[in-house]
């Protein structure tokens, strides 16, 4: 195929221009773009709330907002970011775009269900936005009972419905991916030739379809208790408030892996492409995704060491938590070993991958502090936890998401972004991120509880540093929005394979045609067979 693909060539974007052709599309790539736009909207909303949180915490007194407003702000930050950005971000945008391309399929197995999943997501999002506009919700993204069922007088049900509905979008996407990966691989694309991103997407999908129904039911029960006063969680009605926490974390802990496993998949792709080398210990990396997905279902009780759960339950959950740490460590070691004798280039996506390694390392290692029974008692529900999960979810997931978005941008749009700006933004995000969240580890160990509107004066310096970091981070996130949009019109034409990467997605044109490949590809070699194809790089 000609590498200097003319932009006038027919592709999935210019094949039709009407609004209807987008809103009723069944093309997984177009649906990926619809998702890209909608998750970006929620990322901006969530980011705006984050900024408001950091502004309030600039001073120890609660002087910017009323306490109740502040509580709504951090709740909406959490709800928007977790349910409407982090969970769908990589699977629904990059995953939707890439899974069929990577396995050599024309589309996902159920294109209409794929489109449905987007509408379901949007509907859930609209419910949640309606709750925000209608006055907000103040329960925290965790909706703990009996606060959420008996005490809060904010829009719990509307928000809960939004989360409930959007959960079906995860289930539909997960189910679609699983069927697609089982049934639609191109000839010769055996399981152990699959790119690691596909393995990660598979493991993620398993969690999504097994876990999401549980949180959905928990939310329904919250709504029923609020409206009909059936006693499930409220002890004055004969319920058990801790039961809610079990149900909630049974999904929401695995949901952390829904956020981070696809990120790990992206990182494997980036490291392979920018070292031009196969991933060291491919099978270990692939199976570690499945190990994380499976063990990840049995660690939820580590959110509840101080919840009155029995000490022996705590013991079991702590043990399993430490077991799930091992496959994550194995991945990090394998990625590092992949660099050895690679041909490493420092283009922007690789900078994000380096950033991911550093931040995920700290996020993962601080998880050891929280898994430790006797130590978690002190740092539980403090800023230590806040810092830890931001290192994993923002330092991990968002770094990988941005790295992946840059890496596949030329494939998705046919254009190259501005490399200089991209490197600058990556650096700024890395610096801003650490300045925002590292001080929070210190605050947490000093004892600053999370979800505090006011705090003792001695903690102001660290909070100011954190807010300063958040400002840098905010600008860092804003820059890519500009140069990526700019590249759509003015960017250099990318060509089919600007990185000289392996993988079926780079063998078709950029942007690809509607059904991805003019001829169904036949796979004859494992993923990342860089050594066999030096000729391609020229």
């Amino acid at each position, binding site marked *: 195929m000609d590498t200097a693909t003319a932009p006038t060539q027919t592709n999935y974007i210019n094949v039709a221009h009407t609004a209807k052709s987008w809103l009723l599309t069944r093309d997984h790539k177009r649906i990926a773009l619809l998702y890209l736009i909608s998750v970006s909207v929620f990322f901006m909303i969530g980011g705006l709330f984050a900024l408001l949180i950091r502004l309030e915490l600039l001073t120890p007194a609660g002087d910017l907002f009323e306490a109740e407003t502040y509580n709504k702000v951090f709740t909406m930050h959490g709800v928007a970011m977790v349910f409407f950005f982090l969970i769908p971000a990589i699977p629904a945008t990059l995953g939707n775009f890439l899974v069929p391309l990577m396995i050599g399929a024309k589309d996902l197995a159920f294109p209409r269900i794929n489109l449905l999943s987007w509408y379901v997501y949007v509907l859930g999002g609209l419910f949640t936005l309606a709750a925000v506009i209608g006055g907000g919700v103040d329960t*925290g993204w965790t909706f703990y009972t009996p606060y959420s069922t008996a005490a809060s007088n904010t829009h719990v049900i509307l928000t809960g419905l939004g989360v409930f509905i959007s959960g079906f979008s995860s289930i539909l996407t997960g189910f679609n991916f699983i069927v697609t990966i089982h049934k639609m691989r191109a000839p010769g694309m055996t399981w152990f030739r699959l790119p690691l991103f596909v393995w990660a997407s598979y493991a993620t999908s398993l969690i999504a379809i097994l876990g999401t129904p549980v949180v959905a039911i928990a939310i329904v029960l919250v709504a029923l208790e609020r409206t009909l006063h059936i006693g499930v969680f409220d002890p*004055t009605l004969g319920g058990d408030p801790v039961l809610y926490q079990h149900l909630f974390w049974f999904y929401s802990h695995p949901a952390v892996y829904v956020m981070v496993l696809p990120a790990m998949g992206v990182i494997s792709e980036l490291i392979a492409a920018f070292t031009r080398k196969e991933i060291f210990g491919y099978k270990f990396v692939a199976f570690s995704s499945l190990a994380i997905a499976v063990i990840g279902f049995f660690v939820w009780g580590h959110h509840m060491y101080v919840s009155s759960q029995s000490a022996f339950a705590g013991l079991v959950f702590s*043990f399993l938590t430490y077991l799930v740490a091992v496959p994550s460590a194995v991945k990090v070691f394998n990625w590092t070993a992949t660099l050895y004798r690679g041909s490493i280039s420092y283009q922007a996506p690789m900078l994000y991958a380096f950033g991911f390694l550093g931040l995920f390392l700290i996020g993962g290692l601080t998880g050891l*502090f929280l898994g430790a029974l006797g130590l978690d008692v002190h740092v539980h529900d403090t800023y230590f936890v806040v810092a830890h999960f931001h290192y994993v979810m923002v330092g991990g997931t968002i770094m990988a998401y941005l790295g992946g978005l840059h890496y596949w941008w030329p494939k998705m749009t046919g254009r190259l972004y501005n490399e200089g700006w991209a490197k600058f933004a990556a650096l700024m995000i890395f610096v801003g991120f650490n300045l925002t969240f590292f001080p929070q580890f210190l605050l947490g160990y000093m004892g600053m509880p999370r979800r505090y509107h006011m705090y003792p004066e001695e903690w102001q310096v660290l909070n100011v540093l954190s807010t300063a970091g958040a400002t840098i981070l905010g600008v860092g996130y804003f820059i890519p929005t500009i140069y990526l949009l700019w590249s759509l019109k003015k960017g250099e034409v990318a060509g089919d394979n600007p990185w000289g990467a392996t993988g079926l997605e780079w063998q078709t044109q950029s942007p690809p045609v509607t059904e991805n490949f003019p001829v169904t590809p036949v796979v004859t070699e494992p993923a990342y067979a860089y050594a066999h194809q030096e000729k391609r790089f020229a």
Partner: protein
Amino acid sequence: MAPQVDALYFFLVALTAFFTLLISGLVVYFAIKYRRRSKDEAGVPIHGNLRLEITWTVIPLIIVLFIFGWSAKLFFTMARPPADTLDVYVVGKQWMWKFQHPDGHAEVNELHVPVGTSVKLTMTSQDVIHDVYIPDFRVKADVLPGRYTHMWFKATKPGRYRLFCAEYCGTNHSGMVGWVVVQERAEYQKWLAGGAGTGTMAQTGEKLFKDLSCITCHREDTTGRGPTLIGLYGKAVTLDDGNSVEADEAYLRESIVNPRAKMVSGFQPIMPTFQGLVSEEGLLQLIEYIKSLRTAPSNATGAPAAPAAAPATPEKK
């Protein structure tokens, strides 16, 4: 407890620093050493190495199991209060902390304890979930409605220590804070001696016991329609389903607010529920009274009128 928690903490900080430096060091070193030197260069194909994979699976496994063991041991020390403790009862409500000492002292958002003494808190909530967190003591425990949770600490230095609510509980969550005032024993005794001349918690409980007519059925002998409460606390009770349960605080509380949950063998389910009729403080006073009925019939007499500081009258909702 703080030094033991900190020891584990600093061990983990060192471990984190070691692995962060090791991995980032390797990443930087490889990134520089193996940087791409020509446009068409590819990496050296290395498939993997089973021995390395096993090494870096087993070593982290050993390390995490070591941390698990260490932290679990620490946790069990924290979870089990020593036998001889000074008991304080805590009721959390949106958005304040109420502390009751067995001698009848009640405080709000401030807890006086003597230095060098193991203090055990028995805690419950009147509304949503709260959490008592004293960072300087490295202790924390959720405070739940409808049940009792416990926590214990031993302060080693006099002073004022911050106490926070660490479980999000609504609008004024960050205002639900207080102080633990640790005093030398003599000073603590002086504090105890001062204040309103209130009855002990057990005395107030006894008054409640009479006011609520509990005494009609729960008599000192075995002739009542309900089981006698003398010497009940801490004993095993045989239930009508043949099971046996220890008469601890949780059981006593449940038997007052939901009497039919666990019926004592040989008695009819005739006791009405007292849910909503007795405040959480009142329940704690009743329990403290039942605890005081160790062997002989109670000889506590003439409890003074309920003091304003410790609401002892049944709460009407």
